[in-house]
């Protein structure tokens, strides 16, 4: 392959045509409240891990929905499972349980 001093950039945008909807369905069966999220950010506002780093738990919902495995893997280890998010969620999303199941799902796929 020719070398011209640069590489051709790869698209960064989410291509929803590539996503595997079955993974989402499987998660929703385990944590039905996943669907209720309204992305209000109350969880992030109270998050303990957020105080010390860049973790944004609100984003988990969208990352999972679009099957953004790479982004999820980076994020998932930052949570300390304190469960405050679950207490404050105005829609009753069981975020703690969600994190546990997503971690499992990511591990299973490996």
């Amino acid at each position: 392959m020719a070398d011209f001093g640069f590489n051709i950039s790869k698209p960064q945008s989410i291509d929803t045509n590539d996503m595997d909807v079955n993974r989402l369905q499987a998660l929703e069966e385990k944590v039905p409240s996943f669907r209720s999220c309204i992305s209000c950010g109350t969880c992030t506002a109270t998050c303990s891990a957020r105080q010390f780093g860049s973790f944004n738990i609100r984003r988990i919902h969208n990352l999972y929905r679009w099957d953004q495995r790479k982004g999820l893997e980076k994020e998932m280890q930052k949570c300390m499972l304190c469960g405050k998010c679950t207490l404050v969620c105005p829609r009753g999303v069981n975020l703690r349980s969600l994190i546990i199941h997503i971690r499992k799902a990511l591990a299973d796929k490996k």
Partner: protein
Amino acid sequence: MGNLYDLLREDVRFEEALHSCMNCGICTAICPAAEFYDYDPRKIVDTIQRRNEDEIEALLRSETIWYCGQCLSCKTRCPRGNIPAVLIAILRSVSQRMGYFVESEKGLQQFAVSKKVAQTILDIGYCVHPDTMKYEMHTEQGPVWKWYTENIEEIAPRFGANYHGEGPGALRSIRKDTMEEINKIFEATGGKELMRKVETGAKNKTNIRNDEDLFNLVYNRNTSKE
């Protein structure tokens, strides 16, 4: 209100470029740079409209303001009539003025841009010219370009070009008196000052005094994975 926001607002283009942003993301959705860089014009517009001095300063020192390709696709679409690309241009202008551009790899490239574009304008009156598009600097242009630049004197007249000639026509030499006027305009309007600022800033930051060495460094260096 702090200093940097005011500096941005002093630019005559600012008033038209930012009314108010509702964060709809329509600009990012079709932005070519957002497709290939970790880049989000919406966030930049929002950062400016929040008027947080620390955030604006971070922006002026960042890589992110150098990703935009100035295609202006965002202007066509914004439902609030903002022009993200022009805000970027204003940020870049202030970043260079304040000397912040040297803090980012992409910002430092302005040294190469200055040599390759602005200096060419001052030297020969063109932005781009076959004489300055050397094949070695543009191998990706391919063998036809190599062939053309090697044989240009013999082949350009076939296309009606007046390569290095006097009088009108494509690729003519631009008259000395015209070049003098261009130089005067650059001096009087801050064009040369900007070039000097970029040069001094880049040299002080990198401690490289040799033009060619510095040029090669910023022209080729790409430490990001993008």
